Structure formats: structure tokens, C-alpha cells
């Protein structure tokens, strides 16, 4: 049974090189194990969707890549995660440097309570660029890339909070682009948006995938099917730890899943 149409795309992944390599990943919050023995390759310049029922550790998994879990004192990560062949949890790894390379877009649009311009310029400024004309250029380029320039070019110095929800989320994407990351993590970026805004973001994602490696967590299976090149299905084991059930090209996961649990999930039998 097939409920979801997978969009056929000619462009597909631009390459087959592995950007991020995860081997034997275990994540704990105190005594609770949130993720168990995850092995996954993220392909460069493609979109990888992570799907699965609530509470199976999808967001936690995403936060492994830019070490946002470090903010939780009880969090402990085991295993190997490599970005371009270098371990990101190694002792010498600079978290700040890592987060410049791995950007993140959050579930709810979270622009700072500053102007549109200052929001986009925030990252470059923090990384030491205070040249006005360079900043203007970066802001314009990033907003164009995030398909927001036309709507905001006249109100760059107005508060970012005056934008609509969809615009705010694209602003957050522009803000990430301004830092020139290699990987963009998106944690349910459309869950707080209406369908039209969602569509705009999805178009944007496809567009960005030509240059960036994108990992997206989504609840919305249609969305995963529409935008992603590859899909990873997460599930909860009996002790509530998240496990990776199956991973592969999106078409295959949605049309010909190998695992019974995946099939049940994508056909909407539960979840």
C-alpha cells in the first residue's frame, strides 16, 4: 500500500561523498539512554530527512551534530561522529568553530529582538567582521539566498519581530547562511508555519541543497517525501531509547521499506 507520492527529481544528490559519519553513537541524559548504537552516513550536498514517532530522539540526534547537547549538563555522548573525517567530539575540537560550520534552524522561528539587518549580521559580527560595507553585502546576499530580500529590503532596520512567521523562519535561515556553514540542521522548521509558508521553505531547501548538506527532522511524512534525498527512520526501543531502524534513498523508504516497523509507520498505521 502506498499513501505518499515521492516527488521525482532529476537533480538528486550532487555527489556521493560522505559529509558526516556516525558510528556506534550512544546518547545519555543522566541514566536515561536517549539514543542507542546509531550508525549513519550523511551524504554531502543532499537533504537527509529524519522521521519517526514523537520521543524517539530525532531532535536529540540532530543536536549531536553541532554539539548543542553540551548545554545540558547531564548529557553524555559516546561513539564516533566525524565531520569531513575529523571527530567532532575529540578533545581538540573547537565547539565554536564546529557551530560555524554546522548551522541550525529551530522548530519555532527565533529571530533576536533586533532589526532584520542586525539579526543577519549577528554571526559575521561575532566572528570578527565589523566592516560596514562587507556586512551590507553579506546581509543582502544571505537574504537573497533565503528568498527574503524582496520582502525585507525596505525594512532592514525594522524589528525582526514585525515579520510574519514564515518570513521570520526564512530570516533565521538567512541568519545561518550569513555564517557560511557547510551543513544546515533543521529541526522541524515548518511545524509552526501555515501551508503556504511551508511551501516556500521547502522550495528554499531544495534550492539550498545544491550547495549545502542539509539534515532535517520532520513529523510531516509528506514533507520528508517531497524534499529529501535520503530518509532515516528512527523508532523507540522497549526501554524508550531511540534506535535507527532503517536508512536509505527516500524513494526506497517510502515505497519499499525493508522493515515492518518502517512500513507500518510510513503507511500511517501508527505514529
Amino acid at each position, binding site marked *: 500500500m502506498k499513501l505518499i507520492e515521492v516527488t521525482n527529481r532529476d537533480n538528486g544528490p550532487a555527489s556521493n561523498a560522505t559529509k558526516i559519519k556516525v558510528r556506534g553513537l550512544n546518547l545519555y541524559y543522566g541514566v536515561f539512554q536517549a539514543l542507542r548504537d546509531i550508525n549513519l552516513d550523511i551524504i554531502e550536498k543532499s537533504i537527509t530527512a529524519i522521521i519517526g514517532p514523537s520521543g524517539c530522539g530525532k531532535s536529540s540526534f540532530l543536536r549531536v551534530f553541532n554539539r548543542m547537547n553540551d548545554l545540558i549538563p547531564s548529557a553524555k555522548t559516546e561513539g564516533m561522529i566525524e565531520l569531513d573525517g575529523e571527530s567532532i567530539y575529540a578533545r581538540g575540537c573547537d565547539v*565554536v568553530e564546529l557551530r560555524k560550520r554546522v548551522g541550525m534552524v529551530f522548530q519555532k522561528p527565533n529571530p533576536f529582538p533586533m532589526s532584520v539587518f542586525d539579526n543577519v549580521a549577528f554571526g559575521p559580527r*561575532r*566572528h*570578527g567582521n*565589523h566592516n560596514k560595507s562587507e556586512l551590507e553585502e553579506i546581509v543582502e546576499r544571505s537574504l537573497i539566498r533565503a528568498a527574503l530580500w524582496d520582502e525585507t529590503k525596505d525594512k532592514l532596520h525594522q524589528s525582526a519581530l514585525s515579520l510574519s512567521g514564515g518570513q521570520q523562519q526564512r530570516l533565521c535561515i538567512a541568519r545561518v547562511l550569513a555564517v557560511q556553514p557547510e551543513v544546515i540542521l533543521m529541526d522541524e522548521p515548518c511545524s509552526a508555519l501555515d501551508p503556504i509558508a511551508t511551501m516556500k521553505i521547502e522550495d528554499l531547501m531544495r534550492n539550498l541543497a545544491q550547495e549545502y548538506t542539509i539534515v532535517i527532522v520532520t513529523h510531516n511524512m509528506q514533507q520528508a517525501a517531497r524534499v529529501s534525498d535520503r530518509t532515516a527512520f528512527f523508532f523507540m526501543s522497549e526501554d524508550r531509547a531511540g534506535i535507527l531502524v532503517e536508512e536509505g534513498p527516500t524513494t526506497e523508504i517510502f515505497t519499499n521499506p525493508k522493515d515492518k516497523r518502517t512500513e507500518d509507520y510510513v503507511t500511517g498505521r501508527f505514529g
Partner: protein
Amino acid sequence: MPRISPKTSERLAKILLWGAGFLTVLILAAIVIYVLVNGVSEINWEFLTTPPIGGLSGEGGISTIIVTTVYLILITIFILTPVGIGAAIYLSEYAQDNILTNFIRYAVETLAGVPSIIYGLFGYALFVSALYLGHSLIAGALTLVCLLLPTMIRTTEEALRAVPQEYREASLALGATRWQTIWHVALPAALPGIATAIILSTGRVIEETACLYVTLGGSAAMPRSILSGGRTLALHVYYLAMDTMAFDKAMATAAVLIIIIVIINLFTNWLSQRFRSAYTAMEEGRP
């Protein structure tokens, strides 16, 4: 101007922040240790149980001072508690959004920021002079009631508001009147919070000087009635430090004060923790 790299500024900032924290600890330690080191050696059973000799010689102990402080606390709390709880009940259980309520809220907010010496002036004008109470325990206590009422109301109101609405609904649904619901459900549940408010008020009575300086008189004798004057421990510290050369006795009295305040702080922390754990237990459905 060369810009400092983000990493250097991060390191520098953290050093400064820890420095601020360290300095705060140092200030407290300096005060507490200085007072205790200079005062504790004077504290003994005799010091606590003999009255000060004369008002101004600085010799003798602090027995009458302790008694006065205790009396003042009892009288103040005795008047403060019903009024404060009553007002808090009105604000949390009955108040509607009307002019009177807004006035009351504004009054509570404003009164909380008025300095103690203004209360002192007021108490002096009203209780001491106009009502002919003289410099006395009752004048001091009434002034303190005015001073402490805003905090008492606020803390109690918070405690009442923290009681889950479901409790009240359950009680009302069983046919209890509103007052019965408040009396038998809301108040008992808020009791630890109210107790905290009372203890905090007790602490304030002990700490207060300025408003008592102009309403309590300052007699070092044992009070015989609520119309007697007197001095509290804090006032005694002031008189000893300012009017006598007995810095050792002043330090000893200050040490007694600090010890009491530490005990009160520990007790309120313990109470509020109990209060909090009681609520988490409720929310998790345990009894």
C-alpha cells in the same frame, strides 16, 4: 583600535565574572567573620541572661533586649498575620478587576518601596504623638505592621495562587461554600507559604532599625506593658556603637543577630523546599 579575539574576550569575561562572584563572597565573609570573631568571645550565658547596666554605660548583658525583641515580634506578628492573610485572601480569591482592587494593588506595590524612615516618621506622627501611645512597644509594633504588610500580603497571595485551581473546583463541586473552600482547602494548602511569610516578617522585625529608632524609645529596661518603651537587638547594636565605647558588646550583639538571621534563612529555605516538594508530589499524583 585592535579588537580582542572572541576567545580572549571570552576568557577575560569569565575571569571578571568569577571575580565578581568571588568578591561578593568575600564581602559577606568579611562582615560575618569580622563580627563573629570579635563578638563570639563575649557571648556567654551571663551575657545573654543579665540586663544591660544603665542605658549608656555599655556594660552588662542583653537579657532585657532579647525579651523586648521577642515581645515586639509577638505583638507585630499577632496584628500583622490576620490583616495580611485577610488582604491576601481578598486579592487572590475575591478580587475583581475594579477600581478598588487596582487601588489596593497599587498601594501594596508602592508601600513596599517606601523607606523605613518614612514609616518611622508616620508612626511617630500618628501612633506616638497623635494617638498618645508614646515611644512604646505598641507604637513600634503598629509602625512595623504598616511596614511589613505589603510583603506579607504579597508572599501570602503568591502562596494562595500556587494552590492548584482544581482543588477549589473540586471543593465547590462538592457543595462547599466559597469561604469553606478557602478555609478548608486553599488556606491549609498554602500553609507552608504563609508560614514562610510569617518567618520572613519575623526576620524583618529583627533587622529593622530606622523606623524603631523614632518610635520605640530606646529604654534598656525590661518592658512591663505594651506601653513601655524598649530597644531591640538591632537598636541595641546602634546605641552601643554610637553612644558607648563598648564595641566588643556591640560586636557580640551583632554576632547574636547574625546567628539568628542565619538560622531564619536556613529555616525559610527548608520550608520553601518542603513547600515545593509538596507541590511536585501533588502534580505527580502522589499523596
